[in-house]
């Protein structure tokens, strides 16, 4: 009976109920959408930082990631690579060697970072192969090909098919130099990377640096990037203390801080939006209780317990909150899904922004994350309950005689 009464009480002033519901529905759906946009933005940033260069986890000799010393190498061990690839959380494994030197063409010379890769493996860890703007992403594991960042290609004034010379100091102290043929140009959107990074074949770089069968790092992509820390910890147990397994959070501390601060800003956003919506609900239920004081007096007079009166008003607020939640979360999810995928291209109005080691592309894209649905939903129910509780308590504390008089 309480349920029936609660529903009918809400419906008896349906305009007010619908207005309050609309405020809640808009709050929930906007909140889910804006949190989705935040998540999309951070996912893009994380993807740019990890899928364009680092990967989610990097295994290297202790201290290499800080110092980048040429001699801090490890053995290329096919068995280790196969073992890593077979790990359930791991999606891709890419062995890498890194060299720094000068790239020259005619009169143009530019400093560059050359990353020796096996193209087939690298494309499972980074998405540089999808960012080719000229030429191709090579498939060969050997050969003297090079794929340049667009800024670097512009500065060297090269296009696919052109030749370049790379000069560097090899591990044995000799000067290593060789001719490279430009096979492709990539554009990641990250200014620094596009202006300094070039990809070459792992075997070629090993030979040039006189580091045969050696690596500087093994980069991994995993199925759930936000779980990189526990996965890295688990993988670290398989390696000796002279090696380190670093997740993206340690490689990109600014990014981790940015994501942590996002959690706080998400909470603030939830509080601000729901404080406004909660006041709306509070007002509605205070009005509703004040209008029904005499009715509560009758209910108390005929023997209804004060706690049942309180439960009736609480139930009304819960039903209102629950219905708003269903409609609001449904429309919020729908809007988020509509903005997922490639999102809306904003490149006509803005350029990519590099922040905290990642790049925010010029697009409005949302990502559906369970937390972004759970937090607004649970909070809305709590807000509804709280906003309903104060009027409910007032109703339950009415003195029957005063309520019957309408005081």
């Amino acid at each position, binding site marked *: 009976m309480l349920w029936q*009464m609660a529903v*009918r009480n809400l419906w*008896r002033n349906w305009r007010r109920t619908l207005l309050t519901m609309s405020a809640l529905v808009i709050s929930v759906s906007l909140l889910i959408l804006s949190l989705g946009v935040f998540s999309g933005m951070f996912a893009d940033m994380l993807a740019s930082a990890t899928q364009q260069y680092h990967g989610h986890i990097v295994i290297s000799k202790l201290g290499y990631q800080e110092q980048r010393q040429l001699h801090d190498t490890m053995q290329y061990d096919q068995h280790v690579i196969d073992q890593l690839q077979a790990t359930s959380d791991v999606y891709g494994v890419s062995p890498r060697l890194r060299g720094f030197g000068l790239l020259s063409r005619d009169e143009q010379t530019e400093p560059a970072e050359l990353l020796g890769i096996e193209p087939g493996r690298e494309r499972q860890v980074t998405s540089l192969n999808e960012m080719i703007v000229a030429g191709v992403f090579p498939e060969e594991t050997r050969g003297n090909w090079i794929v340049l960042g667009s800024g670097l290609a512009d500065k060297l004034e090269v296009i696919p098919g052109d030749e370049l010379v790379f000069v560097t100091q090899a591990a044995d102290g000799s000067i290593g130099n060789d001719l490279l043929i430009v096979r492709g140009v990539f554009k990641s959107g990250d200014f620094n990377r596009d202006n300094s990074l070039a990809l070459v074949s792992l075997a070629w770089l090993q030979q040039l640096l006189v580091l045969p069968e050696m690596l500087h790092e093994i980069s991994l992509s995993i199925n759930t990037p936000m779980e990189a820390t526990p996965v890295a910890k688990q993988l670290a147990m398989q390696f000796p203390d002279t090696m380190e397994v670093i997740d993206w959070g340690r490689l990109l501390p600014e990014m981790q801080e940015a994501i942590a601060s996002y959690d706080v800003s998400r909470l603030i956003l939830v509080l601000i939006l729901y404080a406004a919506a909660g006041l709306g609900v509070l007002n509605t239920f205070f009005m509703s209780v004040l209008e029904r004081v005499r*009715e509560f007096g009758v209910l108390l*007079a*005929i023997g209804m317990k*004060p706690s*049942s009166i309180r439960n009736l008003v609480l139930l009304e607020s819960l039903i209102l909150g629950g219905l708003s939640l269903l409609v609001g979360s449904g429309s919020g999810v729908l809007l988020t899904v509509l903005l997922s995928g490639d999102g809306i291209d904003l490149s006509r109005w803005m350029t990519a922004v590099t922040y905290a080691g990642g790049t925010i592309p010029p697009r409005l894209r949302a990502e559906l994350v369970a937390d972004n649905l759970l937090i607004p939903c649970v909070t809305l129910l709590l807000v509804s309950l709280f906003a309903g509780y104060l009027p409910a308590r007032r109703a339950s504390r009415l003195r*029957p*005689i005063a309520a019957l008089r309408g005081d």
Partner: protein
Amino acid sequence: MMELIQLRNVLKSYQAGVQQVDAVRGVNLQIKAGEFAALAGPSGSGKTTLLNLIGGLDQASAGQVIVEGCNLAECSSVELADFRLQRIGFIFQSFNLIPVLTARENAEFVLMLRKVPAEKRHARIDILFQQLGISGLEQRRPMELSGGQQQRVAVARAMAAEPAVVLADEPTANLDSETATDLLFLMQQLNREQGTTFLFSSHDPKVIGLADRVVNLKDGRIVE
């Protein structure tokens, strides 16, 4: 007949601004089980206050209100709610039906609070609606009923749980004289057939004339 209601030196005062108003002044009254009694008197004589005190809606400033052996001054608000649920049936001047409930649901409400099974509830209300001449109106909402029909539903609600006493505050004040007399006859019939004690207030001599016993009040005191 045993005494169902005992009022001993009951006093009820209100604070109206800086002034103290004595609505009931030292009333002593006994009502026996099965009586059909009326509280008569002009407006402000203390009829409603007395009914509210007996019904546990209000508490006396001094003296004792004892209903079925229960001293109401010693009850908490929850105990008073239970007392009203189990022992008292109320009929109000302005009907006071719950607008979102149908006539049947209004009448059944007290039975539902007392957790009476649905079948028994329906059977009881069917009988009462028949006795009160409102069969066929079960699914109507209060606003779809006339004043007389609403008050009959209110009588059904008060009678549904077979309370020890039905307290009716000016039950006919908002009804035309014919409907008022009909309603009083029905209440009288229920009193005689079911033995339910009725205590009602009125200042209408025609209505008071139907009571078996009349208690006259003036300025908060019982007058002979």
